[in-house]
């Protein structure tokens, strides 16, 4: 009986979460709604990062750049050639841009394109392996804004590109912000389920085997090169989807929207939220959105900290979590649940690599 219960906990929590997300807009204004739309976008990005770092054990400091790739793909596709002509941009004719499309359709395309790019980056990065991968992805994060500014005939350069806010389809009686909120959360929900199916199956088992010992995994018949590159591709596709939603939501893309700090803070949030746990992506996303706001203006004390305060808090959090609680926030909850069940508090994380 107890076993069936513990199997049911995950789906039950997912349903509860979905209901909360569906009802939340009734209790908040447009601004809060915007914040929670961004939470959904960060959930998607962090799911991708968690697949890469938490499950397959590879570090990426370049996910901000991949989110940027997704955002630019979505922006370019939804504007299309006619839209870009208004900016007097003249992209080379070999780029299949089309005549502009509904923003929502750009999400899967952006995911696919970013996924393929990530896969291609993954191949040489694999050869570097381990820490060099972190370095290569960091280099990607630093190069991305430079590249976007340099190839301004396609990207609009430092001025960026403005998009039109989409209108609510099907004649639904909700505002555009509400539509975007649901669009982001439905995408996040679908991608959450997809990630869950991936990591609990054969592929996820292979990833964890590689993470916990590449040699042992190889001798059990797992091809590390294949699975690691695949993880990079999947993870990039998630980042691309997040980027597309980001572009649609803000209706604006600009090289400096995707600085190095975005990539670094994404990794920090993924770690603090909890590596090797899909729920960790949710905690990480909440943290990513709200920590900067509340660490600058704490809710109880009437301080006003400098705008650098969030970085300091993030950095210190990251170190403390690594020292004391390798499973992150998700690990803490799991340990608490375990303590309730067994009466013993164990600080272990699911990621035995990290413990």
């Amino acid at each position: 009986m107890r076993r069936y219960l513990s199997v049911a906990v995950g789906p039950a929590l997912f349903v509860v979460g979905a209901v909360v997300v569906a009802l939340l807009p009734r209790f908040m204004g447009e601004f809060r709604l915007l914040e929670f739309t961004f939470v959904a976008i960060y959930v998607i990005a962090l799911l991708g990062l968690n697949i890469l770092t938490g499950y397959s054990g590879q570090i990426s400091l370049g996910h901000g750049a991949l989110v940027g790739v997704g955002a630019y793909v979505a922006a370019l596709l939804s504007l299309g050639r006619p839209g870009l002509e208004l900016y007097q941009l003249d992209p080379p004719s070999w780029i299949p841009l089309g005549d502009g499309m509904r923003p929502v359709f750009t999400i899967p395309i952006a995911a696919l394109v970013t996924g393929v790019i990530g896969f291609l980056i993954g191949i040489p990065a694999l050869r570097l392996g381990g820490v060099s991968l972190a370095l290569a992805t960091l280099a990607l994060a630093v190069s991305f804004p430079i590249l976007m500014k340099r190839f301004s005939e396609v990207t609009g350069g430092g001025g960026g590109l403005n998009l039109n806010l989409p209108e609510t389809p099907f004649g639904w009686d909700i505002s555009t912000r509400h539509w975007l909120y649901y669009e982001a959360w439905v995408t996040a929900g679908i991608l959450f389920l997809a990630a869950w199916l991936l990591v609990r199956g054969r592929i996820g088992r292979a990833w964890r085997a590689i993470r916990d010992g590449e040699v042992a995994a190889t001798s059990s018949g797992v091809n590390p090169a294949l699975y690691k590159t695949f993880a990079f591709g999947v993870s990039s596709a998630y980042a691309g989807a997040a980027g597309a939603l980001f572009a649609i939501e803000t209706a604006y893309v600009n090289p400096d929207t995707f600085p190095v700090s975005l990539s670094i803070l994404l990794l920090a949030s993924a770690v603090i939220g909890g590596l090797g746990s899909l729920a960790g992506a949710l905690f990480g996303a909440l943290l990513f959105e709200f920590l900067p706001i509340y660490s600058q203006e704490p809710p109880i004390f009437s301080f006003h900290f400098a705008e650098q305060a969030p970085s300091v808090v993030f950095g210190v959090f990251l170190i403390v979590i690594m020292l004391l609680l390798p499973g992150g926030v998700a690990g803490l909850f799991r340990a608490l649940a375990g303590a309730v069940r067994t009466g013993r508090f164990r600080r272990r994380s699911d990621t035995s690599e990290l413990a």
Partner: protein
Amino acid sequence: MAVPARLPRIDLSVGPVLRSLLLGVGFIVGAVAVLVLLGLVLTQTETAFSWSGYAQQIVSGLSQGAIFASLALALVLIYRTTDVLNFAQGEMATFTTFIAWSLMHHMSYWPAFALTLVIAFIGGAAIERIVIRPVEHRPEIVIVIVTIGLLIALNGLSGWIWNPEVKAFDSPFSNGTTEIAGVVISYQELGVLVVCLATVVLLWAFFRFTTLGLVMRAVANSQDASRLVGVRVGWMLALGWGLAAVLGAVAGMMAAPSQFLDPNLMLVILIYSFAAAVLGGIDSPIGAVAGGLILGVLINILGTYVDFIGGELRLPAALVVLLIVLLIRPQGLFGHKVVRRV
């Protein structure tokens, strides 16, 4: 566990000093030959090519490269002792450069310079003791994440304390130029080159000729064996971090006058230094220095003579070159192949 593979080479049985001397001379001769060849190619392709202009670019490149080399050496130093790439190295350097900036309001340049180095040393050792020590025996990925945490925190802290506005940083060298064999060289670039290389040579002498240096090399070689013969390994690691921080501080103070001081001063330089260290072979100090100098010259020549790259695409271009080198020679130019024992 990783152990260096035995080199499948014929032992020429010359002493280690002579061998490194030969290697160094060979490297310099090779580099000069490559540069002359490249110059000859450029005389054909570039319409407005002048040898003195070319030489000037090389000197600027060496000067920039010396900064990369210092920071790359710091990375290698920590990599060899703690077995981890320190992502916070650049931010540590920026932070100490800010300290130097504050000190220079109260004293003249060189005392402030020296005092900064002392502070950097203590700070670096303290970071190892307080932050790195507790995760020492945890997997690599954990230590890397901790150094990334340090990066974020230090970046925020330096912006918080000194505010993120761009600051001018004094230079000890005069603004003039001198002419050597028709090549115009600024004192600024020459000074940076001399200071960085002098630091590197001093460090090399420390490791080569002092007992403490010998002990530190022993720790880098095998921590267990060193512990068995009574070395206090923990303190040696802290010393390594301290020395790395000193190198970083030198790089930061040399970079700040031309790049201007702000919290992100060392970010791009850190990536070049990573690239330099990996190019030279991540476990090779000589490789790090050579890698830094090569990279500095390379980006200057590429940026000047290849129009497509220009000023903006230097970093991506450098990384592409790095990638190509690594695909041909994964262990880097001077690194050792690593075999894994299961």
